[in-house]
Each structure stands twice: as structure tokens, then as C-alpha cells.
């Protein structure tokens, strides 16, 4: 597949490829980046990444030294909308709110059992009802695919506590393909129909998921815990393709409220 070969040229091979790769990463849409650039949310990170640069990323959020030519080529091969590769502007959509830091898999090194126990406690402190995490110690891996991306990922939904965190992680995972078109920096606002319609009419990418019933839904329509329980797989697709899901999402939403 031609896309992947081009990707391989960018990511693999000799030193130049590596440098390009570094630069590519630095211009990616960075959601919640400071210091978090070392790894992505999924267990896989590109081993070729230079690690000293994570320190750099902490200090300068974005350097725009990308080779725009390569980016454009990558974009056209992926069928992505032409967009200015200098996406730093896009990444700091809301300067007032510091971007949530995406968590790295397995860090800090605390076993999931303990993490789940503690998560339970903090939510208890917030006054929520007595919760027993029925699958407390089991991970919830789901496949994540993105239209146009050459390979699948897997994420453990239990690693995250909110849609924002998941969104960050997905953004980083597929950043090399979205070039800023990943529209879920803010969670989809289901209450605002016109906003929703705008999103779905664009070529922005939106996350969708298949639930227990086999239906495909827009991510974000149900409370987080319910989502984790019911999500079977994730698919990031173009807004325009997801448009068929919206009415169903609305319906399910209404039937739940």
C-alpha cells in the first residue's frame, strides 16, 4: 500500500528519515503535549523517536521546522484535506485551559488493581454512589482504526478516566495522519444540533464506536463509564461519513435521558 511505503520512508530508513520523523512529530497536532511527547496513549510508540527531544518538547511546545513538502505528500496520499502544516495555532485552541496531559501506558508503574482501587476512592470522595468496579482489574482493550491509516491500534479504555484523556491519546496516536483534522479536541457537543451538523459536514475526523448492540455511535454521547462498558471497537472516520450516525446518536441519547 503506497501510503504505508511513504510512511515507512518518512519513519524508517537512515538518518535523514529519522530527522524528518522528528520534525514531523513536532509539527503534529499536539493535544496536551507538555512533557508528554515521549509516548502515545497506546502501548506502542515508534521506537525511532529520539528521547532527548521529549525534554525539548517540554520547553518549546512547537517548532515549525517541518519539511512542508513531505507533509503535503503525506497528506495527499492519505486523501487528507490540504492544510497548513504549521498547526501549532490549531493545537492551542483554548490557551486559557491547559491541555490535559495524556497518560503514558504503564507509567507511573502502579499495578492496575491499585490504580482502579484508588480511582474508586477519589470518585467516592466526590460524593458519587457506592461503586464497585466489576471489571476493576481487567483491561478493556479495543481496536482503534482510522480511515486511511495503514494499521490498527489497540487502546485500553481503563487507562483513561474521561473522554478528554481518550481524545488526547487518540489524537497523538493518529496525529501523523490527521494533520490537524482530528476534530475531537473538544468533545462533540450533542446538545447543539447545528454545531454537530457542521462537524459532520466537514472533512474533520470524528471518533465513532461500535457498542454492545452492534450499533455505531458517535463517541461522547453517553457517560464515560457507560461508554467504557459498552464500547467494543473504535473507528475514526471523516465527519461526512459519520453523518448517518447522528440521528441515531440523538435517538439513543434521548431515550436514555
Amino acid at each position, binding site marked *: 500500500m503506497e501510503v504505508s511505503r511513504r510512511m515507512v520512508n518518512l519513519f524508517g530508513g537512515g538518518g535523514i528519515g529519522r530527522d524528518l520523523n522528528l520534525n514531523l512529530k513536532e509539527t503534529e497536532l499536539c493535544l496536551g503535549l507538555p512533557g508528554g511527547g515521549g509516548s502515545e496513549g497506546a502501548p506502542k510508540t515508534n521506537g525511532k523517536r529520539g528521547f532527548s527531544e521529549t525534554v525539548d518538547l517540554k520547553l518549546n511546545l512547537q517548532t515549525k521546522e517541518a519539511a512542508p513538502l513531505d507533509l503535503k505528500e503525506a497528506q495527499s496520499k492519505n486523501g487528507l484535506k490540504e492544510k497548513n502544516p504549521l498547526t501549532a495555532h490549531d493545537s492551542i485552541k483554548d490557551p486559557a485551559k491547559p491541555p490535559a496531559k495524556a497518560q503514558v501506558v504503564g*507509567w507511573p508503574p502502579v*499495578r492496575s488493581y491499585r490504580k482502579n482501587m484508588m480511582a474508586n476512592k477519589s470518585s467516592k470522595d466526590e460524593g458519587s454512589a457506592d461503586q464497585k468496579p466489576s471489571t476493576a482489574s481487567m483491561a478493556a482493550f479495543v481496536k482503534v482504526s482510522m480511515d486511511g491509516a495503514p494499521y490498527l491500534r489497540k487502546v485500553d479504555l481503563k487507562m483513561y478516566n474521561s473522554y478528554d484523556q481518550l481524545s488526547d491519546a487518540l489524537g497523538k496516536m493518529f496525529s501523523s495522519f490527521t494533520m490537524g483534522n482530528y476534530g475531537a479536541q473538544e468533545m462533540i457537543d450533542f446538545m447543539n444540533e447545528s454545531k454537530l451538523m457542521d462537524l459532520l459536514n466537514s472533512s474533520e475526523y470524528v471518533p465513532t464506536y461500535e457498542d454492545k448492540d452492534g450499533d455505531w455511535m458517535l463517541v461522547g454521547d453517553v457517560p464515560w463509564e457507560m461508554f467504557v462498558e459498552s464500547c467494543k471497537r473504535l473507528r475514526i472516520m471523516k465527519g461526512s461519513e459519520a453523518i448517518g450516525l447522528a440521528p441515531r446518536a440523538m435517538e439513543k441519547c434521548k431515550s436514555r435521558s
Partner: protein
Amino acid sequence: MSENNHHLHHPQQNHFCPAETMSEDEEPSRPSPPPPELGSKKTRNCAAVHPSPHSDRVLEIVLEHVLQFLTASRDRNAASLVSKSWYRTEALTRSDVFIGNCYSVSPARVTTRFPRVRSVVIKGRPRFADFNLMPQNWGGHFGPWVATMGKAYPLLERVYLKRMSLTDRDLCLLADSFTKFKELVLVCCEGFGTSGLTAVVSKCRQLRVLDLSDTEVSYDGVDWISYFPEGETCLESLIFDCVECPINFEALESLVARSPALKKLRLNREVSIGQLYRLMVSAPNLTHLGTGAFGHPEPQDPNNQEMDYAAAFSACKSLVCLSGFREVMPDYLPAIYSVCANLTSLNLSYANIDVEQFKSVICQCFKLQILWVLDSVYDEGLQAVAATCRDLRELRVFPLNAQEDVEGPVSEVGLQAISEGCPKLESILYFCQRMTNAAVIAMSNNCPDLVVFRLCIMGRHQPDHITGAPMDEGFGAIVMNCKKLTRLAISGLLTDRAFAYIGMYGKLVRTLSVAFAGDSDTGLKYVLEGCPKLQKLEIRDSPFGDAALVSGLHHYYNMRFLWMSTCQLSRQGCQEVARALPRLSVELLSYEENEKMDDDTVDVLYMYRSLQGPRDDAPQFVTIL
């Protein structure tokens, strides 16, 4: 770095695991003496069956009798090397086998060499698997072991497994095969359900120890507690504090009441404080208690007396180890005051209590040697520990909120205080958000007995937060000044200099954990070339590549394993190692499900010495070079 619950069971256990060395015979499995608390009596294997001339025969009998008293594996290994006859006799008299890596040797080979084994320890998955760094179903199956041992060791009494996968069927086979079975200890294991447990508890009538620390048990509808046989049991230790299954309390109460030898009882969080009370009343001789929820009292029944929890605790005169508090209601904490003065071990690491509540407890625990807490006790709480617990040997401070970039309640202040107040400290695990070199250096000076030093600065690449310098000097001081150090876990911003220190001074270091550290291959080279005792090396997300990897060729046969994930290794580099060292099993693990990824990058390298060659149960994401 992380928790490892089983250490809490054996406060007097010798933490020093015998170093494994390859004998000339290249037998990598080594026994270790079982911890004294478990009370396993070593059987004397007296019958020798050698057809040899009379004088030789006498010598061998004498040898057997003498070898019986050799328990330390290092001594046994040495004895086995003296001569063929010593080798044979030693093999016949070895009753405890320790297998540090289940894939290093096949079950058949073990049972062939050691025919009279009573106790077996087997470890499976590497530790980093605990943190989701390894895809599921990697391996570590108990099945082949129980199948082989079931036939070879009908008199097997004790099985201790760590990070292994067991099925219900395996447990059934165990229960059926070993009529004299006495002790089952499963640490960080998974794969089975309550049905499997049922088989064990119902068939193993001499069961003394059932310990399921940090082991995942799925609930398949069967209440295993109800299946202990009627009448008095031999139970001495029943530990299921992390088992997330409902239990039938009446059955448990009955079980405890008919287990006169019970000394250790660790309940899961399904057990309410009211139920705890009833159990304690019928078992006042407990030495180790895990309190379960320590909350959710029954609604008050006006006909019953109010439960006097304090009295129940006072009645337990032998209590030395307290844990649990899984859903603690702090109002009930004062009930434990009367036992605090006797406690040598206290685990509050699941108890979200505030500073004042913690201080009210800890200020009475002046005999404490082992303490596990949450960082919600703040530096202030740690200062209270330092003021009271002069005898402290082991401290673990876990994060309530295990994330980066949040406000941390403990810091260098707490560490400094502990170093000043607890000079006998031998083992520390400390999670924090910020740290200074000065505090770490202070600890290296104040606590010369340190054997285990694990510091986890949760923010990756965090420097000394006051000076802005890397944490090299702090860790350097630790390896320099703590002459007994065998286990080290490093974190924070670290350059190759830190590794230079480790290579230069860490001559006794056996276990090293590295994450997000170092600048270049040189760092890893320092360690591989400088640390002759290195057995277990686990590295993640650090810039070490092929050049560093091949610099350790001289040493890999001496190690139990090397783990490197998300470093800068290439397949070729790993291939080179595999070619150079044929007795090394070099596994490459892949995180991706689909192809299309760059074939050259290595997600995870996990390699270990092995006599049995490439294993045959490797899943698809594992490539063995």
C-alpha cells in the same frame, strides 16, 4: 518499581534471593529455602539407589545425610559440582526447587534431575507485564508444569507461583495429583476462577496455606469458601484480600471457627467491619490480619449490643501485622490503637485517610518495621513516622493519584525526614512528584543498610526541582554509599553520568529498573560492563540501541533476563545477540496487531537464558530469534 505484596507476608524473610549461577552443567534452576513462616518441613530424602561398591555406598549414605542440612541453593549448587557422585546425591536430596524463569528449563528436565522434590517455586511473566507493557496471553502457563509434576512428584507439598497463568483445569489436576498437598501461594497470577479454587480446598485435606495475594480470580458462581471440608481444618494461613469475588460470610465464619491453627487471615473488601468483628471474636490468636473493608457497618440492631471493636482488637494479643482498610471509615480507626504498640508491620496503602488520622495511629507504632502507606499522609505524616518508628526497615509510599503533573503531597521533605529518623532502613519504595539530589544524598548517608532503593519521580525527566540539575548525583550517592545495595530503580532526569556511577559503584546490584533515562548507548554500556552481579535488568523508553546491547554479550548468560521496551533496538542487533549466544532465548514482542509497521523497529526485547530452546507456546505477537 512497584508494589510486591508478598514481602509483607514475611517480615522476617530473608529478602536476599540466592544469586543464580550457571553451573558447569548449565542447569539454571536453583532452589531457595522457603520462608520460615510457611512452616514447611523439609523432608529428609534418605533413600539412595546406587548400585556401587560397598565403600562407595557408605560414602554416599554419609553424603546424603550431610547434604540434607544444606539448604541454601548456593551451597547446593557448589556441592553438585564437586564430582559426579556428589552431583547425583545432591540431586536426590534436593527437596526445594526454585525456577526463576519458567522458560529457562523444561518441566521434564527438572523432574528428571530432581526426583524427590517437595516444594517448587516457579516464576513466569516479567515484572513490566504488571504495567500493561506486555500484550495479554504472552505465556507463563502452569499447565505443563502441573502435568509433569503430577506424575513425577506425587508427594509434592508446596507450590509457589509468581506471575503465572493457571486454569481451573490446572488447579483440578493439582488437587487430584498431590494427596499430601499443604501450601498454595499464588502471587500476581491469573487465568482461573472460583471453580478451580473449589477443587483445591475440597480435595487437599492437609491444606495449611492458601495465599492469593494480588491474584486475579474470576467469579464463576461457585462459593469456594463453602467447599472446605467439614470438621477441623489444618489452615494456618488464608489470604484472599485482593480477590474481587463475593463470598458467603456464614461459610467463612464457620471455616474460621473450625480452624484452630489459623494465624494469618487477610479478608477481601467484601467483608464489612461488622463481619470482621465476628471473625476476630472467634480467632483471637491471629498474628496477621487483613481487615477487609473496615467500613460498612451493619445497621444498628437495638436488641444487640453495639459491637466493641476496640475490645475485639485488644483481645488479639498476638497481632503483629495489620493490613486491609480497603474502604476505611476513619471513625473506626481508634479501634486499632490497642494493638499499635505490638505491630511490626502495617499496611495502610489502600486507606485514604488524612494526615491527622494517620498520625493518631502511627505515633503509637514504635515497634514498626514495615510500613506501606499512601502519599495522602503528606510529608507531615512521614515526619511523624520518622519521629516514632526508629526501627523501620521497609517503607513503601504509594500514590493516591498515579498521574504526572499533579500536585504531589510528598516530596524530598518526607524522604529527608525518614532518612533522619529511620537509620535502620533497608528497603524503600517512594512515589513522588518532586525530589532533590540533596535528600537522596542524605538518605545514602543516613541509611547505610539500604538494600533496596526504588524512587519513582512520577513526572518523566523531572530534574531536581530546586537546583534544576539531573538526578545523577543523588542516585550516584546511593550506589556509592549504600554498600549492601542489591536492588535499584531510578527515575527523573538522568544522564549517562548516572549510569557511570552505577557501573562504577553498584557492584552488588542484582536488579535494576530504568525508565525514560540516559542519553546514549554509553549509559547502558557502563552498567553492562560494570555490574558483575546484575541478574535482572528492565529498561523502558530509553535511548539505548544495538551498540549497547552487544556490549553485554559477556554477561547475558549470568542473567535471569533482560527487558528493553521502546528503546532504540533494531531487529538486526537482536539477531546478532541471538547468533552469538545460542543458549539465550531472544524474544521480540510486538504491540501492533497488524503488519505494515516498520519491520526493523523492536517494540519489546525480552531475553533470558534457556536450556530448552525456543518455547512452543509463544503467541503470534512473539517472535523468537
